[in-house]
């Protein structure tokens, strides 16, 4: 059986980028709605 390619670094990068974007937008909404 052929070896599975080692592409885990790309997967980690995509998962981190997605989490950062979603958390940043969540924080942005929180800060904007908190402002009087």
């Amino acid at each position, binding site marked *: 059986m052929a070896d599975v*390619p080692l*592409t885990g670094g790309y*997967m980690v990068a995509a998962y981190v*980028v997605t989490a950062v974007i979603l958390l940043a937008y*969540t924080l942005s909404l929180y800060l904007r709605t908190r402002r009087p």
Partner: protein
Amino acid sequence: MTLLNRGRLITLLGLASLAGVYVRALAFTPTERLQGAAQKIYYLHVPAAIWTETAMILVGVAGVFYLFLHDARLDRFAAASAEVGTVFATIVLTTGPIWGKPIWGTWWTWDARLTSMLLLFFLYVGYLLLRGAVADPELRARYSAVLGICGAALVPFIHFSVYFFPTLHPQPIILKPSAPSLPWSMLVTWLYALAAFTLLYIGFVVQRYALSLARDAAGGAERAHG
């Protein structure tokens, strides 16, 4: 419970669900043999793309109804959906190249699907810029509705571009007329991810709508006192 708090609660549920998706995708979903771990980007990239396109369709539908009914709630919803769609489009346009590099050997290519998705992202940004540039609420809502309808018209082309111009980007393996070409274990993870992104879309839109409502109310109070 206020509308804003409802939105926050749904967003928290969405984020918790997404954390569950991360655990399931990374630890309990098999690794694809040809692509390796990079294939797991699929569980984020595709649900984000589906909601990027759906959000713009909803902006367009709200725009059509706004032009007939002139209801400010439709304009508020369209603005909220466009902002959230921009966030999801950013996810699609960052995870896509990260996935493409190890599989295609390039970060980017001017393939029809990639190019049309980039165009949709620019339309989203243009929509938000337009809203910021027009001061009169009535005029802003009308111009935005027209641009939203144009954006929604682009979405079917994006979806079918892989059939019209089959180059690098693969054709759908789930959203197609025949049965999904994905093992059950992977399909369940993808469905969880789609549910998490759906919760995030709803939670974000409700919060953004509540923010517009509060701003409009503050603006109305200022005009009443001014």
